[in-house]
């Protein structure tokens, strides 16, 4: 699904060049449930931007379901994002003047699906996430957990191959965080690749694979079998 070889990325501000990703290699297979961890400055946001076709890279290869993502113009990038990737953000990023249903329907709007049809589909997804009764509420009338569920419905509506979640539980209490993680797990069970960026160990521990970034390269990959050990190690730390 995702294949990255020798990925380099620098940010240039004035005369200073900040080399963030330094030859990163990464393979994520279809249907994986992965979390990316790392201290700040380790390059996890940069990696997420590149994975989400939101930013380009300087050197290396990035294949997204077999297709190399390179030199896309903004329109092509937008089409790729719309078709392949569902985004979930820490701050939900719902459009404040649209109600829950309209927010969920937004990606279909960009696909030029008719209003009636996309609202119908949006209701379906809201129903699946238990928010049918809240469909006509504005984001400001929803709780944090509800907002994130709306955001998840919005990410799912375009039938993406991959869900990219940037700190999806960062703004939620631990109970709600667990609920959201449960939903993401269900999503993953349907065969969608889910990639979560987080700095919370217990959230990361709920995924099936943890990728720890360190200084722009992969520091450590902890897979399913080692998760128990990892948890123990965490408690020691």
């Amino acid at each position, binding site marked *: 699904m995702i294949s990255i070889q020798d990925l380099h990325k620098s940010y240039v501000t004035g005369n200073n060049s900040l080399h963030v990703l330094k030859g990163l290699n990464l393979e994520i297979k279809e249907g994986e449930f992965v979390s990316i961890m790392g201290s700040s400055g380790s390059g996890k946001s940069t990696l997420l931007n590149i994975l989400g076709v939101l930013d380009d890279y300087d050197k290396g290869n990035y294949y997204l379901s077999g297709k190399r993502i390179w030199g896309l113009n903004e329109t092509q990038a937008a089409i790729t994002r719309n078709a392949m990737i569902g985004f979930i*953000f820490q701050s939900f990023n719902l459009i404040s003047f649209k109600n829950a249903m309209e927010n969920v329907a937004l990606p279909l709007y960009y696909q030029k699906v008719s209003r009636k049809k996309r609202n119908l589909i949006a209701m379906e997804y809201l129903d699946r996430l238990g928010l049918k009764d809240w469909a006509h509420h504005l984001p400001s009338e929803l709780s944090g957990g509800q907002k994130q569920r709306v955001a998840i419905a919005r990410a799912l509506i375009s039938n993406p191959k991959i869900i990219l979640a940037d700190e999806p539980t960062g703004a939620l209490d631990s109970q709600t965080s667990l609920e959201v993680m449960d939903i993401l797990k269900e999503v993953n069970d349907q065969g969608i690749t889910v990639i979560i960026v987080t700095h919370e160990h217990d959230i990361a521990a709920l995924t099936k694979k943890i990728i720890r970034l360190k200084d722009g390269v992969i520091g450590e990959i902890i897979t399913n079998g080692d998760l128990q050990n990892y948890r123990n190690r965490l408690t020691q730390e």
Partner: protein
Amino acid sequence: MFDLDRWNEIWHALAKNKVRSLLTAFGVFWGIFMLIVMAGASNGLKNGIVEGVAKFATNSCFMWSQQTGEPYKGFKRGRQWNMESDDITYILNNVPEVEYISPKNFGSRMNGGPNTIHGLKSGAYNVKGDYPEYIKIDPYTILQGRWINDMDIRDKRKVCVIGEKVFEQMFDAKENPLGDYLKISGVYYQVIGVIRPETNININGRAEESIFLPFTTMQQTYNMGNMVHFLAVTAKKGTPVSVVEEKVKSIIKLRHSIAPTDVQALMSINIEEQFKQISGLFIAIGLLTWIVGIGTLMAGVIGVSNIMLVIVKERTKEIGVQRALGASPRTIITQIMLESVALTTIAGYTGLSMGVGLLELVSKIIDSQPKTGNEVFFRNPEVSITVAVAALIILVLAGLFAGSIPAKRALMIKPIEALREE
């Protein structure tokens, strides 16, 4: 274009900053409003003046004698002299470019006290001696009877044509003035016609308050000899009036031993030149209207551009999210452009309607005024459909222009910026 969501977005974006949107819209509104009102006002002024003089022969000039300004051929300066009837015949025979020539003499004036009597009524009017040709230069509507003709001139008939006001004041409304007699400065004249002037141009008093005698009758009756007070000349088609004016003047000067360089002895007015000056003035007023109007409009448009920039900046995050969700740059550009076009068009259209409304109101008020003798030089302030359409096109273009800069700015927003809170 008529996607509900799109207009929903536009509405929300503008409604979120009501005061700012309103103030900006007011800029555009004011610009177009001023443009329309000024264009209408200058048109009204033009219509008023043009209506007042439209029928006057523009290919005409007028001349009259004054004391000489230079000594010449043994004559001292300051000599009194007059044009004479023979001059007229001579000019007609020797200046082929002359279309009509009409001498005019002035008799007793209305400010000299009552000079006209009919039965028990008396009044004071300007008495003028005219040729049949004069009506072709300064047209009058003949309400009753006829104008002076060649036989009146030849036979020096004691007849008169009276202005509308003279009829109203000297006769009862139901009375038939034709064939009746007026005693003017001691002599009886038979009334042959009643006229109403078609222009606002007056020579020696208003025509409706004047009495017109045959030119030759006046010369004889009031002991003027062959003296000519005033001369009206028109040029044939294709000849500039100034050419005719100069030719006629030099002939008259020659015949009366006046220095060719004397500028004061024979004064003249060239109506063609006057008209050119007036139309030049209107072109200048029109130009000024457009410069000021478009300037104001531009200020409004820049205001719109400015507010759109602010809106884009405030919605950086939102635009970023939309792009992360797969909105193409084109969708975003269309969005911003439409917002700006909507704002300018609505504001501009309101300005346009209110401007036209105001002009209509003024026009109605002017039209409802009873027509008095004192004509206002302001009539029918209006804006042509061309101007209105041009204004609308300018508005839409201005909206596009105002939207293009913020749209470009919106495109520069990387979706990444929406991802992170910082």
